[in-house]
């Protein structure tokens, strides 16, 4: 959100200056900052109506009380105290919420690292090795194929492949590499990470590709002329210039994985805790304030991660 507003704000002075030279009389009446507000206005309104206001409601409800069948609009910290139940009493054992977040963060880190690695090289290939624009287009569209089927079907499709009697296991057994089917292929952290990577690498590819395609090819030639090896060019030229794409892609992947409960649920055999899963269970039990409290906690943690990332790279500046 910030970024798009920022683009508008950065660009608008140029636009205003352009019109100043053409029609000086009109431009004098509308101040540049007013035009900027006007340009950012529609997006801001949408943002306000569909994001900020609902979010405020979530925060308010998280401090309400509830019973079996309704919300009680009286101040109560119950949603939060219940959530952190046992966090001090159970020490040194971890409480439910701490365990859940540790697991979620671990999955998140793994998925982020793998999608970044794969996404970076796919984007690199598309940007620097595929010369024709048509092919670049076609190949990036290919990356969207995982999105052509429904979430559930896509995940159910893993069972015949990774299951106890699945293709991978029967293949390994036939080659004699294993005697017993490997159980950790499915309904495990492995399968969760696999499915998430399969789904979300695309969100890494697009922004990184977008950053890379904008790198001036003459910079790479210059590096080559100056005697840089391929590796040096990569580390000193391409990666720094692709950083905004890397950060944006990372934000996409991290926010999605932090809130995911469907993929983790199905691929983890519903046995792996996830921050989103807690919210789902609470909502299904009609305990909306507790669900809202968990949503606020999830939001705060995700926000902290993103703030840390934008500390490393100033996206506003880079764009």
């Amino acid at each position, binding site marked *: 959100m910030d970024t798009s507003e920022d683009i508008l704000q950065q660009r608008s002075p140029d636009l205003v200056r352009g019109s100043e030279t053409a029609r000086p009389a009109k431009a004098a009446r509308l101040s540049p900052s007013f035009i900027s507000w006007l340009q950012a206005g529609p997006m801001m309104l949408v943002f306000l109506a569909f994001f900020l206001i609902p979010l405020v409601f979530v925060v308010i409800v998280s401090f309400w009380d509830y019973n*079996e*069948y*309704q919300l009680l609009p009286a101040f109560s910290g119950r949603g939060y105290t*219940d959530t952190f*139940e046992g966090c001090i009493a159970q020490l040194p054992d971890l409480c*439910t919420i701490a*365990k*859940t977040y540790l*697991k979620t963060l671990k999955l998140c880190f793994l998925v982020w690292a793998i999608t970044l690695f794969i996404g970076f090289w796919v984007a690199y290939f598309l940007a620097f090795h595929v010369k024709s624009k048509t092919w670049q287009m076609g190949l990036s569209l290919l990356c969207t194929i995982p999105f052509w089927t429904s979430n559930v079907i896509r995940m*159910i499709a893993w*069972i*015949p492949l990774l*299951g*106890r*009697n*699945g293709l991978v296991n029967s293949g390994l057994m036939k080659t004699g590499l294993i005697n017993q089917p490997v*159980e950790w292929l*499915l*309904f495990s952290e492995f399968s969760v990470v696999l499915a998430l990577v399969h789904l979300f690498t695309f969100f890494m590819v697009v922004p990184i590709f977008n950053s890379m395609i904008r790198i001036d090819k003459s910079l790479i030639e210059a590096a080559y002329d100056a005697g840089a090896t391929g590796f040096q060019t990569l580390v000193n030229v391409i990666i720094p210039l692709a950083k905004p794409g890397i950060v944006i892609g990372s934000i996409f992947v991290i926010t999605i994985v932090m809130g995911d409960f469907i993929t983790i*649920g*199905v691929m*983890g*055999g*519903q*046995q*792996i*805790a996830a921050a989103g*899963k*807690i919210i789902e*269970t*609470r*909502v*299904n*039990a*009609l*305990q909306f304030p507790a669900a809202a409290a968990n949503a606020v906690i999830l939001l705060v943690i995700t926000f902290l991660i993103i703030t840390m990332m934008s500390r490393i790279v100033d996206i506003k500046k880079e764009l």
Partner: protein
Amino acid sequence: MTETTKKTGVSRRTLLKGTAGLAGLAAGSGAITGFPYVMSAEPKVLRYLGTAVNEGDDISKQCLKDTGIKIEYITATTDDVTKRVMTQPNSFDVLDTEYFSLKKLVPSGNILALDAKKIKEFDNITPVFTKGETPGGKKIGNQGTAPWKVLYLEGKDSKTFSKTATEFVTLIPTVYNADTLGIRPDLIKRPISSWSELLNPEFKGKASILNIPSIGIMDAAMVVEATGKYKYADKGNMTKEEIDLTMKVMTEAKKAGQFRAFWKDFNESVNLMASGETVIQSMWSPAVTKVRSMGIACTFQPLKEGYRSWASGFCVSKGVSGAKLDWAYEFVNWFLSGYAGAYLNRQGYYSAVLSTAKANMEPYEWAYWMEGKPAEKDIKAPDGSLLEKAGAVRDGGSYEDRMGGVACWNAVMDENDYMVRKWNEFIAA
């Protein structure tokens, strides 16, 4: 909203009357030849919120044919049905929901009880609901939210369940069943007779339960009781200590790798069983049927500790009144009149009014599904596909044996909030 639509409807109709009176006459004459409702000016439409269990296309088609009421299904999961009643009570007319959710729905005031006097077959509803016993007189287990505990309200707008029969019925029963564990006899290769087998280390990594807390904990309680670790006063209404104990047993099993996966959705349970990922798991009757129709051996295994049962029924939204309420009664009466009951019985569920369903089934079908006798002919599903070859016997046997063997009912506990938290802890363990 309805006011305005009605008004425009009327004015449009008057307009139509003036300009196309002949067409009206044609429609009228059509009524005599046997298509009375299709031509009717104001279509009778009911929005029907429920789970997929009762929502067959055949049922709605037959209903339109017989009564002229067009049913618009709104399908949701059990949890989402409850959520919708709470948050959008005006988004449906007829509600088909489970008895255990009444503890939440009735106090919310979002649903209306139906008048027993307007239900033609009310006195013929199986005594399972009204008395807690089978037609043959067997007493049924009353742990949990048994339907007869929540069947009547004290008054029209009362929020208190009545202990004695009144004319205000919370839910007119539609469908119910007795659930147990499903097993793969071809992979287990020995008889299974107790719920405790679910935690038998022999099936390590090959067991599953369902991940709907309020139902899952009941299955867990059946297991705990079967292992002899504890005897509950009421499995459907545990104390905090009992919840802790139950979850502790389950957590230990989970940590030891007993469970392959938990399932939440009908198709998930079918997949787990059919693919051999699990060999023993809590299951629903039609899911077992589906696995079997794939040519894979699967038994809905009767167990000595008994069944966990569930039941659902009809009520209406508080927003329903006038003509719409009449249609709702007409629809509920039609539902109990036999066609739908026979349809449900043929899927392995049970219908509320047995006599009318029987009249709509072939004698050999009734003998197989309800009397536990070997099938005289091939048994077919409502869609015509083959379910069982001649000679097969239904798992668990007759209606008397199955419903009479019910030990507890799906429930919402007083400590529901605590239980949900503990369930999350169990998943995180």
